[in-house]
């Protein structure tokens, strides 16, 4: 029971943070601080330089040291404030933020990137498009994969060959050129919402072939099991057999595939962004953030840039965790 509550809290909390990034993020995802590029995570203090304790945590000003590093300057102290209203640059509007420090102080709790943008805010804002698109794509790929794979396994014969040859075609083709061609036919500017559906659609539609083969393999043996044969003998319809007898046997496989596909699809966005099909700068997405990490110098010199990896781990682990819990509950109820 404790596990369940923990899972639910984690699940809901994570999704709130990702769906409403504006609540938690101290800055906008595209807000540049050109004088603070690649600043390491800002340290939050309770004790000041003189050793005095402050109930309200604070940060010190950070100053560039000249050799691409930063140091803290104890001369200025900026207390962390909660529920602050800050101005949004270049628009004249104000926005409520969960926490922040007064300008000119900066708080980068996960450090900053090549443009001096707050990585924490970018991870939060990036999650919305990436997680949603990866989930939708996973759902699409698994839906198509399950239906086609099960159909191939259950019906056999010509259906099987046709579907399997189609999946092989899907795996063999050089998608790269297809995607290039797709990009060439699309308009230059793609709105964020269109980007989202494009990502989900492209990844989902190209990603069904492997799950389909896996599921077909399992369905092949599943349909030969005694209770399936007897159900057929009793004249059960094919769809009934699929829903009541086959699908439950496929479920663990589908869950496992989902856990594998979600992070893979988040990373697929890296390639799509390269082709101009993903979210492009300055929009944040986990794919873009992971793409930054693929550079030697970022990996060795700016360790905080690995944060997006842990965001992806957190999300996919949460899904796995929840899936486990539900499965166990369903089983315990059944027994």
């Amino acid at each position, binding site marked *: 029971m404790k596990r369940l509550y923990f899972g639910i809290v984690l699940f809901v909390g994570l999704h709130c943070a990702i769906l409403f990034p504006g609540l938690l993020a101290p800055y906008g995802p595209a807000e540049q601080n050109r004088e603070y590029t690649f600043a390491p995570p800002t340290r939050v203090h309770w004790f000041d330089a003189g050793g005095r304790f402050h109930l309200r945590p604070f940060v010190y000003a950070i100053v560039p040291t000249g050799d691409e590093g930063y140091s803290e300057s104890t001369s200025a102290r900026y207390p962390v404030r909660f529920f602050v209203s800050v101005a949004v640059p270049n628009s004249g509007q104000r926005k409520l933020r969960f926490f922040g420090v007064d300008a000119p102080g900066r708080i980068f709790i996960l450090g900053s990137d090549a443009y001096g943008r707050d990585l924490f805010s970018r991870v939060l804002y990036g999650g919305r498009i990436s997680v949603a698109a990866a989930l939708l794509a996973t759902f699409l790929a698994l839906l198509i994969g399950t239906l086609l794979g099960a159909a191939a396994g259950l019906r056999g014969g010509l259906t099987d060959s046709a579907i399997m040859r189609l999946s092989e075609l899907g795996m063999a083709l050089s998608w790269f050129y297809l995607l290039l061609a797709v990009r060439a036919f699309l308009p230059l500017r793609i709105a964020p919402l269109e980007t989202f559906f494009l990502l989900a659609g492209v990844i989902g539609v190209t990603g069904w072939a492997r799950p389909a083969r896996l599921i077909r393999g399992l369905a092949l043996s599943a349909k030969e099991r005694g209770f399936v044969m007897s159900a057929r003998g009793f004249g059960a319809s094919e769809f009934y057999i699929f829903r009541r007898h086959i699908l439950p046997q496929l479920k663990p496989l589908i869950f496992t595939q989902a856990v594998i596909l979600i992070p893979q699809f988040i990373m697929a966005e890296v390639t799509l962004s390269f082709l101009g099909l993903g979210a492009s700068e300055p929009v944040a997405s986990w794919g873009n953030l992971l793409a930054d990490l693929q*550079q030697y110098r970022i990996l060795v010199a700016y360790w905080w840039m690995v944060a997006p990896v842990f965001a992806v781990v957190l999300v996919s682990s949460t899904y796995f965790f929840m899936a486990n819990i539900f499965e166990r509950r369903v089983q315990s109820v059944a027994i």
Partner: protein
Amino acid sequence: MPYSVIFTNSIFTTETRGQLLISKSGNFETYKRVLKRFSITRLRNFPITKCLLCLRVSVVNWILFCVALPVVAASAAQPLQKGEDIQVEPGLTGNYGGTLVVGQRSEPKTLNPVLAADAPSREVIGRINADLIHINRYTQKTEPALASSWKMSSDGRTFTLKLRRGLRFSDGQPFDADDVVFTFQVYLDEKVHSTQRDLLVIGGRPMTVTKVDAHTVRFELPQPYAAAERIFDSLAILPRHLLQSAYEQGKFAEVWNLNTPPSQIAGLGPFRVKQYVAGQRIVLERNPYYWKADSNKQRLPYLDEMAFIFAGNEDAQVMRFEARETDIINRFGPDNYSVLAKEQQDRDYQIQDLGPSLEFNFLVFNLNDVPADKFPDLVREQAWFRDLKFRQAVSAAIDRQAIVRLAYRGHGAALWGNESPADKLWVDQSLPHPERSLDHARELLKSAGFSWNSDGKLIDNQQKPVEFSIITGSSNAPRVKMATLIADDLSQLGITVHVVPLEFRAVVDRVFQSNNYEACIIGLGGADADPNPQMNVWLSNGGTHIWNLHEIHPATAWEAEVDGLMNQQMVTVNYKQRRRIYDRVQQLLAENLPVIFLATPDVLVGAKNNVGNFRPAVLDPYALWNADELYLRRQALASAR
């Protein structure tokens, strides 16, 4: 003495090495020569079994062997011959021996100097071939190479070159005027499709070459041509005896690809091909007949071998250099500077920022005449792009210093004109370098009829919001950064800019073929520190007249003026006059902003501290231009790697 290095070690290890040479490398001739010289003939009778036992003696011996092997196996420099017209480099010293390892980003595609178009191929080909007149990469001025002297006739159309006497190709065959005539016949042949042919065609007509005597050739130019001697740089002189039959059979495209046996490839450069291993490396060895010597009358090059290893990408190239697997890293990106700099002391190498390169990056608006029914939005937006004040406002709003600082991590220079400061002889120092000014940009926009709506967005005189996209190649990280920075800069003017990174060839296709783009960030690399390579960019009917291709007549008055000036500078031989004309071109470009110049990256190179005579230059091929003079310091050779 090249051999002294290895034989300073114990006799025992020497013997082991000697035996191995016979069994493994098969270079028996060299081996015998070595033996004779040192009269260690008893090695011949050394039993193979014992030799194999020796193999296990120690790993250290093996490493020593690895270092020393090339020294023995490589061809020895021939002593200077009488009647050989050697160029002696005053003040140059060094010692023989060793293999210099250079990491390349990708694999060369061909060894055919006439057809090679990619940078890695040219990097290798440049080391195995020589040209008639060479541009010294350091001084950026021409100097004698295979031609020891040259003379231009008073009408500027006949160019006579005296060739060096007694020279040999790397396979030992003599070189004379017939080779030169043959070479230019190949370059000028339309059927060969040399990418360098266009350099030799002046004003639409090709130059002609005639042999005067065995060591004199004459070039007839169709019209006077400024800097005529610069054309000859990097035009490799080909051995007629090896290539003529293939050329006459129309098979020139197939000669000297990577699978050609090294014995069939010869050139006049400091090195010759020894071995190619697909996907891994290409090894060059000393050309024993090379025509340069140092101040001690020792024939160059110093190095026994040069090995180019193919790293795969820039990060791999950087890591291999950092791990000391390669001796030289020839140009790397600004992003990697700080990583390499941090390890400099510990790892005993040094990296250098040589200052700005010739490449210029710019923002270009699509000013092509496009059909209104196909691109309705673009045609509407072109009303802004064509407005000089709009372009000036954009230029004024761009924070070029931030581009240098963020996109190039400080290793670059801001540009306000088409010539980079690297082009010492031609850059117009008097061009203004206005500071970024949003107020000035706003004034310009206001005077051009733009205004701002209640949300702070910029709108044009038809109340349409000003919004456009910038495409750029996604594999070029600095350019994507420039676009992102510019988008942020312009958002402060109320302009919405979408950054659209595309795969590189998709960008080129849009810019040059479909014209389906609004604005683009792209760069052009200067081939030479001279105005002539940029002719096709600024001439209104030039093939690289990027903002408005296929202009039949100059679209604007100033473009007509640039046309006149560019054509005039091409035939002006006097440097000062030519310089004045070209300064005016630079001013016109800076005033009329057909493209908005942004920045140029610095040339960054590195070498191990034991590489001697390392004098990299900002012109291609950067650190390797004096490969014949580079040497590995003796103590480095003696100690194990």
